[in-house]
């Protein structure tokens, strides 16, 4: 049987529109909107390049990022084949930047993904259940909110010990309350609308309603907030590395490089700025791309 219902003979539609206004499917309409958004496409390409560079670092990095040289310390751009010069231990800066993307992107993305999954779930549960469940979840989150995020991250990863995995776990814990709050607010807003009540009236269970009617409406705000957290996460991770709680030297990491090069700021200011620029460009691109995707996915725009 065909998908389209055939109209009965003589059926009249007083609201008929000319066939030129036919509607597209959801994903193809998202694609069309993205194609008409050159800025998002542009920044998307940059994000892609950064990610690809991190993945294929061994193939494209011109030098070994760990190879030190006493004589080649803090050399300027283009010095003896080092396109971006060298750092305070004579290691090639470009290679370290490329390799550094690996840990920085991981530290930026993984904690946010964990926090979105856990915090988002808790927020939707709290927002939809309301009353005591909501109060229990949100008051617990408020306890975490009471600490400044940097302090909390330092405290947690300090308690668990250094290392990248512990750093990620600490950052995830820092982001969960905020993520939860965003999801809870969005869910509570949707919950009071008539279409939820209509869905309940058709006899749908709570899980089905959440799956089909709540998630689609909550995903937007959660998504945009999560993407703004990526850059925060990269920065906090570099803070942890700086304190010796995240990535350990000599592993290349943008945050760590920023803190070690900091002492050379009067000698080689440009070299010092490079890891910062990398963080800046990455986070800006993430924000702009996610914003573009969000508006392309918003059926109401």
């Amino acid at each position, binding site marked *: 049987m065909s998908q389209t219902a*055939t109209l009965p003979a003589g059926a009249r539609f007083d609201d008929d529109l000319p066939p030129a206004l036919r509607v*597209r*499917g959801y994903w193809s309409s998202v694609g069309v909107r993205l194609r008409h958004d050159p800025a998002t496409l542009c920044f998307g390409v940059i994000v892609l390049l950064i990610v690809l560079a991190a993945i294929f670092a061994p193939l494209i990095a011109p030098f070994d990022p760990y190879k030190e040289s006493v004589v080649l310390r803090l050399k300027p751009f283009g010095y003896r084949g080092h396109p971006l010069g060298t750092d305070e231990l004579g290691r090639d800066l470009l290679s370290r930047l490329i390799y550094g993307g690996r840990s920085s992107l991981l530290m930026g993305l993984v904690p946010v993904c964990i926090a979105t999954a856990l915090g988002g779930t808790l927020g939707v549960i709290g927002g939809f259940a309301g009353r005591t469940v909501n109060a229990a979840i949100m008051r617990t989150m408020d306890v975490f909110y009471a600490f400044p995020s940097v302090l909390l991250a330092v405290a947690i990863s300090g308690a668990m010990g250094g290392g990248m995995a512990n750093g990620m776990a600490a950052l995830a814990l820092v982001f969960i309350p905020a993520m939860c709050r965003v999801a809870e607010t969005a869910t509570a807003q949707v919950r009071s609308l*008539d279409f939820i009540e*209509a*869905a309940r009236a058709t006899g749908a269970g709570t899980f*089905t309603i959440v799956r*089909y009617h709540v998630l*689609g409406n909550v995903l937007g705000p959660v998504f945009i907030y999560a993407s703004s957290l990526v850059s925060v996460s990269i920065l906090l991770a570099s803070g942890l590395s700086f304190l010796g709680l995240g990535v350990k030297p000599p592993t290349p990491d943008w945050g760590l490089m920023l803190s070690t090069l900091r002492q050379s700021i009067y000698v080689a200011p440009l070299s010092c700025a490079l890891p910062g620029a990398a963080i800046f460009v990455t986070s800006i691109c993430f924000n702009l791309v996610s914003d573009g995707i969000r508006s392309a996915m918003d059926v109401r725009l």
Partner: protein
Amino acid sequence: MSTTLTAPRPYAEDVGGPAQPLLIARDLAKHFRVRGGSKTARVRAVDGVSFTLFKGETLGIVGESGCGKSTLARLVLHLVERDGGELIFDGEPVGAPRGISIAALRRHVQMVFQDSYSSLNPRMPVQDSVAFGPFVHGRKKPDARRVARDMLVKVGLNPDLFGPRYPHELSGGQKQRVNIARALAIEPRMVILDEAVSALDKSVEAQVLNLLRSLKQQFNLTYLFISHDLNVVRYVSDRVLVMYLGRVVELGPSEDIFTNPLHPYTRALLGSRPSMDPTNRIEEPPITGDPPSPIDPPGGCRFHTRCPFAEAVCEAKSPELGAWLERGSHVAACHMLNAGSGHSAAPA
């Protein structure tokens, strides 16, 4: 193949027979708790409402804003928990151990809400919103979508043009048609129309009312039609129930109520309609003041604070509604109608 439309459903599920009312509500009550100050107050939104709904009829419910009409609708569907009273659906008590479950009730009773926009998921194509009901009731997704598209045809929307659209791309009338299709997609026996046409402009309202009328015949439906618009209620209803402050004040056949209202409140309500005759203008407001707060409603007859005929007995005693269970009865809760009530105008 010319059509995939389903034939009108026979009354296979008519458990109680044609004489059994589809719905009997007895002393329904809902008291909302409101927090404020030191003590918790209770809003008596619905306070002992009884009525019957016979198979195939349209019962109109009218009343001022805040009289409990919408709460009553939600009580019938168990969207809010009732605090008292009982519901009997086609002879089976709802939610009772040996009666019909709430889940089963929701397969038979559906609702169309006033706000056509917020009652559709803004991020779902309307055909998926319509298909949701059949999907919940166990149909496979392509199958449910086919039902949805058939329903869109029934409400006069071309499924190829409108099915994949989102609610914001439709006009108010089109959205309300989608909502009607959504309510009918699981083949209910009864539909609650909670101010379903009130937000539409007049020409669209008439179209939708006629659509509702033809759908009612096609699907053997019973309507509970809630509205504040008296002319619309008169147009669609077989019988009318008038509510005031959470109570029933009058119940009877539509024409009887509109031509011969018994209760002073009904008379005032009907008197508030604008006159069509310019030489016969309404000079004085038929009723003054606002309804008292349902948080602390007046004792006795709820209407005595605004009633021109109020006497001591009205303040002291709550009037009985009378024989509300019978089909043709025209009853009103007023001491002036009850013999021996103590009111000076009461029949001897």
